[in-house]
């Protein structure tokens, strides 16, 4: 046992010394940067897996064009099946065995929650996680974790601002899913509307994810006489709401959260005609939108898809998302130059200044600071015209602090 003890101590000492001497993060050599990722390539959330695949294709393109500052990217993306214990296992494998420099775009709220503390304890950058929860932007408590997409509170605040500007006298009805996701939107709305929230909101209803239908909530909200309806629900319930509203003839201005603003999973099941006029928000270019038919950026994306991800679906918005988020990471690594310590990677990620990213809406940019770990905080309103979601009005920004 004594020899074992000594051996373990020796190994530990070597590892510690190795980490202390080398300036660059583990996984960084003069020719390579190792980046880790988990995605649900199998299991209930596997439709998101295309994000991980499109990012992998993006790194192949980066490597073909010479890499970043002469370093190629080694992208190790593992399947976690959207199961938090599996995520923990895969992330530990990436950090401890593969010795990645950092992780990037790990997908899912429960899955990232399972490794949130681990990554911060190990002080490994846990960058641009693929989830809209608000908790990824706590630089004081979790200085190694950062989100990317506009978070739910930001979107809620944008809805609040929109109501203040367009329906200053409107009576507002709110329905939301009774969990952190739904409550985050309401927090954002309250922040934007201040004491107007209490004045204008005449009725609030919640539903549980377990509820079979939300018919009674819709009837109660319609009964309040509201002329603005803020609908914070997932596609299944959003489609039910659209149908029920049509059935009882309630026609308020319908503001639907971006989570459910999908033609395929919400509007079509509910009936395209019934979904006409729904207002929502968007922050990146939908490749299906005829507006981007001849857009050079979207065409570049299409050419890239053909060459690097030929198996991918060019009508799937998520592939555009993967492309845009990958460019955020490229920007951070370019800025970091030859100082690829974990500290510097984190420092560069938290000092993005109005960085334009391809496939984001025109005029949009990523912006962070050591106290602002929310890169994207702008969105544009859209209105569904029966065949597609048409953008209108200026970009709206809402800072989350």
């Amino acid at each position, binding site marked *: 046992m004594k020899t074992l003890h000594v051996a373990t101590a020796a190994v530990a000492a070597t590892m510690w010394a190795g980490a202390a001497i080398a300036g660059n993060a583990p996984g960084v050599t003069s020719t390579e940067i190792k980046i880790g990722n988990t995605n649900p390539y*199998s299991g*209930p959330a596997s439709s998101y897996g295309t994000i991980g695949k499109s990012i992998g294709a993006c790194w192949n393109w980066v490597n073909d064009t010479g890499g970043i500052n002469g370093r190629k990217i080694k992208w190790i993306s593992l399947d976690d099946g959207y199961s938090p214990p599996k995520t923990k296992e895969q992330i530990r494998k990436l950090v401890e065995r593969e010795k990645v420099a950092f992780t990037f775009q790990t997908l899912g*709220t429960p899955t990232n929650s399972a490794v949130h503390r681990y990554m911060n304890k190990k002080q490994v950058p846990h960058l641009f996680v693929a989830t809209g929860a608000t908790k990824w932007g706590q630089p004081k408590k979790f200085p190694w974790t950062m989100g990317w997409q506009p978070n739910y509170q930001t979107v809620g605040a944008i809805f609040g601002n929109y109501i203040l500007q367009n329906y200053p006298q409107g009576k507002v009805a709110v329905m939301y899913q009774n969990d*952190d996701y739904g409550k985050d939107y309401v927090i954002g709305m309250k922040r934007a509307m201040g004491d107007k929230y209490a004045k204008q909101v005449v009725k609030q209803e919640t539903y549980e994810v377990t509820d079979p239908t939300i018919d009674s909530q819709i009837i109660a909200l319609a009964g309040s006489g509201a002329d603005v309806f803020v609908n914070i629900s997932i596609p299944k319930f959003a489609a039910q709401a659209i149908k029920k509203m049509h059935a009882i003839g309630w026609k308020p201005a319908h503001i639907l959260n971006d989570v459910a603003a999908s033609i395929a999973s919400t509007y079509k099941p509910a009936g395209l005609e019934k979904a006409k006029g729904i207002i929502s928000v968007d922050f990146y270019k939908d490749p299906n939108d005829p507006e981007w038919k001849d857009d050079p950026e979207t065409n570049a994306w299409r050419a890239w898809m053909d060459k690097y991800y030929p198996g991918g679906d060019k009508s799937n918005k998520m592939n555009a998302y993967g492309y845009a988020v990958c460019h955020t990471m490229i920007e951070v690594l370019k800025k970091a130059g030859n100082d690829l310590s974990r500290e510097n990677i984190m420092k560069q990620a938290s000092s993005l200044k109005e960085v334009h990213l391809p496939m984001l809406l025109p005029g949009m940019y990523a912006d962070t600071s050591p106290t602002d770990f929310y890169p994207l905080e702008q969105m544009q309103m859209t209105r569904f015209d029966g065949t597609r979601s048409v953008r209108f009005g200026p970009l709206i920004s809402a800072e989350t602090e």
Partner: protein
Amino acid sequence: MALSDAKSVAMRPNPAHTAVLFGIKLPMWNLYLTVIGIAAALVLPFVVEGFTVFQLTQALVYAIAVLGLNLLTGFNGQFSLGHSAFYALGAYTAAIMVERYEVAFYWTILPAGIICFIGGFLFGLPALRLEGLFLALATFALAVATPQLLRYEHFEGFTGGVQGIDLFKPDSPIEFLGGDQWLYFVVLVCGALLVVGAWNLTRGRTGRAIMAIRDNPLAARTMGINTSLYKSVTFGVSGFYTGIAGALGAAVAEFVAPDSFTFFLSVWLLVGMVIGGLGSIPAAIVGGLFILYVPNISEALIGQVFGDDPSAKALIGVAFGCFLIFAVYVMPNGLAGFVRWFVARYSRPGI
């Protein structure tokens, strides 16, 4: 020669005690393999890196859960697709006790098991009216309902809702053992105690009663076995095992959330049990290793063959499916069945 062989077979009290496989008597094989297994289990955490220790710990946790399911299905003949619910109940019991009431982790393992015993026993009572496929359906409902209940807002104060609960694994009290190694030994000791328990249970009167119910419920009842009681108790014991696995699993993952315990977990446990072999205790370890490693092997294999092609990720499931079909095709009765067949095929009667 043949004649005398036949004669000796007829006269031997138990051929399993004297049969010879590759020149070594069967009981000696048992002894050697057990000793090698125990030695490997004790030495491994010192020769492999921390991450592998963590993986082995998780595999042991799954093995305990598979053992629990095997007691119910393999020995008692009752089907369950709901063992993720017991696993979740055990995990949440441990997590809530540690995080909300600041109980030391070690004191949560047994309560987690006991709560799951009660849960299993109570579920076993109404399940008595259900046989085979219908019982599978009822337990399926349990598996589907559990994550939703864990999210339910009125339990949120306890369960943490969708966010789940973070907990830290216990620190190692022994200087030369790292955190991962210590937890490995905690799980190993629990697993060893549970294996001994299962072994005793299945070899005694109770075990014979449990198996008699599986083989022929009507005959068992005629023999005076209280089938209702035994079936409910077996459900309880199975829950106890799975609950303990859940509590240990919570410490290994250091996190519990509703999405950790979906219906898929039940299916994985079922896969582990079938691959290991129904009605065999050592098979549970094979099942645990299979659950943990074969998906990883599939992933590595696809990575090796297809390199950086992003579309190839979709094939991981296909590779896993092939492994599964291959395993079932080569070993239709699980690894335990394969070993039994192998011994029967290659062993010679002893003298």
